[in-house]
């Protein structure tokens, strides 16, 4: 599934990184501690977080993520949007909390490959 399909299916707001909407979502991850996410998030995932500062874009680029989903109605800093645009990392917004959004993704078939 492409990142843009998530946008359409779940009515997410595209805050930045539109150029990356064709990225393939190969899994999902929830986390707000950056080093923990860096170590454990699957490659190609959609990352659900409540962090909004621009270092999340660096994490997403380095971990080769498909998209960042900022949960809980939080909004990204301006620098986050600029950097996400530069790197082509979609930054998507939802009012839902991370758990509820993850549940929807899971139901839609976004699952992590074992290992």
């Amino acid at each position, binding site marked *: 599934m492409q990142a843009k399909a998530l946008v359409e299916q779940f009515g997410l707001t595209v805050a930045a990184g539109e150029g990356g909407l064709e990225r393939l979502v190969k899994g999902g991850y929830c986390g*707000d*501690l*950056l*080093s*923990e996410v*860096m*170590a454990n998030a699957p*490659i190609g995932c959609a990352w659900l*977080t409540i*962090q909004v*500062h*621009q*270092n999340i*874009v*660096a*994490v997403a*680029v*380095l*971990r*080769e993520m498909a998209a960042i989903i900022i949960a809980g109605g939080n909004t990204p800093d301006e*620098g986050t949007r600029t950097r996400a645009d530069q*790197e082509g990392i979609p930054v998507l917004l939802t009012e839902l909390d991370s758990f509820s959004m993850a549940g929807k993704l899971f139901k839609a078939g976004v699952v992590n490959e074992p290992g």
Partner: protein
Amino acid sequence: MPPLKKCFHIKGRDFIHAGQAAITVQKLLRQMGIAQSLIRRIAICGYEGEMNVVMHGGDGLFCVEIDADRISLEISDDGPGIEDIARAMERGFSTALEEYQEMGFGAGMGLPNMENHSDELHIESAPGKGTTVRMLFHSPETGDSQED
């Protein structure tokens, strides 16, 4: 392949550019056709090393050296140094200030991540003397750059 060395400056407390050196190196390694699995390990280690300089260190230098049989990262700063290196290596140990914890830093996982994802990790540090972290990656993994 002749060895290639590139260095980038890191500015302490500059969270705006933090991560940029690691990203630049990731792109460079991709252009060079380095194996994807190796690039991913270096991405983790580079990120953690760079963030430690930004958050705990001070101004610093981030160098990558690419040889035929290995890649090394040397990340050094002129910050306060580490009092007890063994303690700093413990998963969960962190001296990150509360304002950084709120940003999602300070899990005390950076150094453990570097240890897990490098083949060798060497830390030289003393209070008042700054910190140098050197990581080595042996690269027998050439030729699988197409894998996913």
